């Protein structure tokens, strides 16, 4: 029986093995056909109402799953895929920002601002795919790795006192998320360089050629982001790769000289610009590895309405002139709540080459004024109180008239409510009293339970963890102003916990105000879905409207840092004087001292031994000289020398004269 059974099993094994091999091979071929490493480069330009220009660079690389081609990397940066694999990152976002997004004039309701307006400094959040007790270790290692990769001190986020675990108010809500910010981190060229090195063409070709450092950092706002999404997790067995989005958003002031020349009389005309006048460079062809390589010019709803552009006459633009003809024009899908539509002009970089570089310019003919779409409530935050002991944080929300009509359109049967999420992290030395939370609606104090629907608080622990407050507010739609205040005590730090420039004050990171019922999205009518651009598909995603408040600077009591040294010095002196004199009194024997003095006096009288020792020292050379005589100045040596020479010469002459 055994002998009979064995071949069967063998056959079965061989059969299944072959089948498996075929299946695996087929599967990999199929996957490779679907998922190739892809790279796209796009630039979006958008004129802003306050005579500025927004430039938004969007680079996206998608890496195929690691199982399909092992450790080989074509377009996707190896460093990033190793990072994802090592720390099992599901999603991560790192942003370096300089300056503050001006929500009032640059808007806050479009996908561009809600996903690219970031708090100043460094912001990092990550979602891990590891067991709960490993997350903190992964986070620590991730911060160190990122600090090495991007030349920044992100590793300060490793200590538990700096990062927090948002429960539900932070949009990528999940239990495994960690969130940390460094508001005072400097952002400069050294952060941009490694970021550019992740691109397959770096800044040597394609749209990234425009990234001229001095003109970028001269801008009003600069935000450089890195967003990672690992679409599959290995625990589920399906691994579909990593998507890396790199965006750079800058707000620049175009040189207005050209406009002044043309229309000297008109002051309110928008400055005309071109790529070469803003960046000082032109695009000489696309990065060969980029599949869609395109530049967009976006006229937002307000601007197109001000221009009188509608879906019928968008080809004729009476107020401005473009230096290049757009390849395509997209119109926004009409939505219920606004009459005007955004218009998108598309330019394909592929058509241009070294001899004929791409340089789009926009020349305004008549002055145009418009407003960007605002967030439902404009949020700002400030400090109250004075002195070094206690103060209060206030978050004020002000209704923007712009969206009032929109809100009323959204309301159903009278009971219209506006939901606002507030996420606030405070460092441990700002000791917040959560019971002192007060809410004002239209300048009237209201009961906390009326307005606050849900609250989650995790108090800070000294030197251990920061304080986190997550609040859901339900405000009536007709609200004009609302305010939250909370009191805090200023803590004391140890002397080694103060920063080198402690007198400047300590930062409280931005609060995040989000409106989960509102979604910013911009859907453009596209005739072919094949040639889909990642930037436009990103705009179509429904992202919640978010805004960041200002960073607060809290002055803490700073000691006189030289005080410990003074104390030590004085104490030491006092002790030395005391013990010295006591020892002196105890140890001194008068008779011994007198004998010593006598001996010394006897030594001094003998001149001959001194002379002899001097002579012997001179004969032996310079070595013993410093023991006897202090080094004398050169002028003195010279006079001595001359005297000696004269003496010897006189002696010789006398001798000769005497004997002759």
């Amino acid at each position, binding site marked *: 029986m055994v002998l009979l059974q064995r071949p069967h099993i063998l056959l079965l094994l061989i059969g299944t093995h072959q089948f498996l091999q075929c299946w695996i091979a087929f599967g990999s071929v199929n996957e490779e056909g679907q998922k190739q490493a892809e790279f796209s480069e796009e630039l979006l330009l958008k004129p802003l109402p306050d005579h500025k220009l927004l430039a938004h660079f969007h680079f996206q690389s998608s890496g195929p799953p690691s199982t399909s081609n092992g450790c080989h990397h074509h377009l996707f940066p190896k460093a990033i895929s190793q990072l994802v694999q090592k720390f099992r990152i599901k999603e991560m976002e790192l942003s370096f920002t300089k300056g503050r997004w001006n929500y009032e004039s640059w808007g806050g309701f479009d996908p561009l601002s809600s996903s690219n307006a970031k708090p100043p400094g460094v912001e990092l959040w990550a979602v891990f795919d590891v067991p709960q007790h490993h997350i903190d270790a992964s986070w620590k290692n991730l911060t160190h790795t990122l600090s090495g990769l991007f*030349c920044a001190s992100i590793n300060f986020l*490793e200590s538990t006192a700096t990062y927090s675990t948002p429960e539900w108010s932070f949009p990528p809500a999940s239990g495994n998320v960690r969130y940390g910010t460094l508001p005072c981190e*400097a952002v*400069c060229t050294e952060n941009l360089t490694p970021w550019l090195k992740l691109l397959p063409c770096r800044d040597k070709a394609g749209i990234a050629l425009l990234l001229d450092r001095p003109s970028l950092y001269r801008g009003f706002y600069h935000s450089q982001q890195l967003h990672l999404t690992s679409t599959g997790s290995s625990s589920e067995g399906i691994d579909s790769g990593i998507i890396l989005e790199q965006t750079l958003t800058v707000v620049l002031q175009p040189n207005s000289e050209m406009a002044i020349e043309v229309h000297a009389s008109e002051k309110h005309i928008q400055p005309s610009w071109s790529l070469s006048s803003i960046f000082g460079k032109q695009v000489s062809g696309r990065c060969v590895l980029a599949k869609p390589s395109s530049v967009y010019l976006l006229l937002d709803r307000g601007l197109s309405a001000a221009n009188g552009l509608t879906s019928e006459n968008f080809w004729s633009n009476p107020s401005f002139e473009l230096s290049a003809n757009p390849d395509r024009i997209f119109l926004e899908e009409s939505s219920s709540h606004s009459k005007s539509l955004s218009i998108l002009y598309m330019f394909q970089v592929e058509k241009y080459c070294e001899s004929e570089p791409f340089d789009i310019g926009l020349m305004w003919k008549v002055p145009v004024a418009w407003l960007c779409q605002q967030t439902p409530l404009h949020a700002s935050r400030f400090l109250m109180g004075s002195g070094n002991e206690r103060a209060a944080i206030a978050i004020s929300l002000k209704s923007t008239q712009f969206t009032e009509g929109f809100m009323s359109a959204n309301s159903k049967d009278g009971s219209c409510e506006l939901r606002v999420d507030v996420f606030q992290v405070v460092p441990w030395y700002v000791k917040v009293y959560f019971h002192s939370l007060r809410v004002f609606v239209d300048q009237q104090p209201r009961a906390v339970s009326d307005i606050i629907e849900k609250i989650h608080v995790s108090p800070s622990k000294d030197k251990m963890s920061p304080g986190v407050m997550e609040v859901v507010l339900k405000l009536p739609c007709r609200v004009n102003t609302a305010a939250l205040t909370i009191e805090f005590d200023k803590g004391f730090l140890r002397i080694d916990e103060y920063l080198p420039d402690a007198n400047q004050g300590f930062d409280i990171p931005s609060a995040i105000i989000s409106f989960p019922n509102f979604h910013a999205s911009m859907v453009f009518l596209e005739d072919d879905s094949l040639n889909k651009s990642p930037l436009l598909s990103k705009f179509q995603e429904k992202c919640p409207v978010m805004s960041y408040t200002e960073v607060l600077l809290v002055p803490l009591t700073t000691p006189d840092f030289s005080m410990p040294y003074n104390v030590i010095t004085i104490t030491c002196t006092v002790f030395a004087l005391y013990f010295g004199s006591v020892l002196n009194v105890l140890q001194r024997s008068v008779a011994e001292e007198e004998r010593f003095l006598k001996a010394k006096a006897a030594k001094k009288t003998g001149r001959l031994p001194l002379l002899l020792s001097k002579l012997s020292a001179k004969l032996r050379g310079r070595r013993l000289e410093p023991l006897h005589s202090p080094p004398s100045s050169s002028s003195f040596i010279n006079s001595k020398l001359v005297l000696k020479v004269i003496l010897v010469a006189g002696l010789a002459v006398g001798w000769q004269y005497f004997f002759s």
Partner: protein
Amino acid sequence: METFINPKSLFHLLLLPCLLLYSSIAYNSSPVEAAMHTNNWAVLVCTSRFWFNYRHMANTLSLYRTVKRLGIPDERIILMLADDMACNTRNKYPAQVFNNENHRLNLYGDNVEVDYRGYEVTVENFLRVLTGRHETAVPRSKRLLSDEGSHILLYMTGHGGDEFLKFQDSEELQSHDLADAVKQMKEKHRFKELLIMVDTCQAATLFNQSPGVLAIGSSMKGENSYSHHLDSDVGVSVVDRFTYYTLAFFERLNIYDNASLSSLFSSYNPSLLMSTAYYRKDLYKRRLEEVPVTNFFGSVMETIHTDAAYKALSRRNSGRFEDEMSLDQSVHHIKRRMLIKVNDGDEIHDINPEGEEGASKCPWSTFRKKFQKAENVDSLLNYGLVAMIPLLVISTWLVQ
């Protein structure tokens, strides 16, 4: 069976001494291999915070640019900058740092990699970098991964005083801390040769206690180091004198130049520096005339010609070849030494242990040495006077 075993054991017995011999040879040859200069590292530290210390960052970045130009790659440079000057809001030229008022050269080009910056530049981190005792999470780009074949350039600038250097205006690196770190590095075979270059007030005191290194400081004890010039557009001084003249020396060089360390050291003019550049070589084995500056400020390896590729035997040959090379170089250097001799008067020799040792060994040579030196005229005259007395006595005796 025994007959089979016996030859085998005999063979083993014969093999054993052979192995021992081989191992001893290998052991002897291994230091030769270890002594080879295989790589270059640079640790460049700017320790000053605040805008008015712009010049310190410009100093460090100038050195960074120089060593990069002379061939040390970015991953072998640890750059520590205590503050952000390039994108400082006070900087009129964003993302640019200049070390000269002509603004011809942007030191903060497109390819700067800063490893430690801002609050990370502390004494602790500095000593961790030197001694290599990091946390496990610290990435490789922030570590000094040198070995026993490394030449390390350690450049520091900031505000300092007698035996200390201030970090961030809040803590100090003391000379014995530095000496301790250097000693640890020596013990751990983290370098073959180390050049410490310090541009600060009373710089000479900082490395007084460091063992086994070559060091150069911008000023002696009790002297200040001064800035070179003020840029009225930037609003602050942009470079220090010592670094300015160091750069002036290096700007003339390229990676193929053979200029020696002694020519660098003798290029400092105390009247231009307004301080006395002090160098310390008493613990350094090689002659400075034979050491090209690119040994520390660049990454130029000696090419060794071998006939057989990838063979262990070529080791000994290479050692011999190296000797020949050095002989060859010394011949080349004779000419340069002659030139240097001319400048000898300007050179400041503060420590001269050779002279002291030589006095007991060979009086004639010391006499000759002393003869050569202008400053020993006094003793020479004394010798002459003493020698005249017997002459006088003899001559009078003969006359009589």
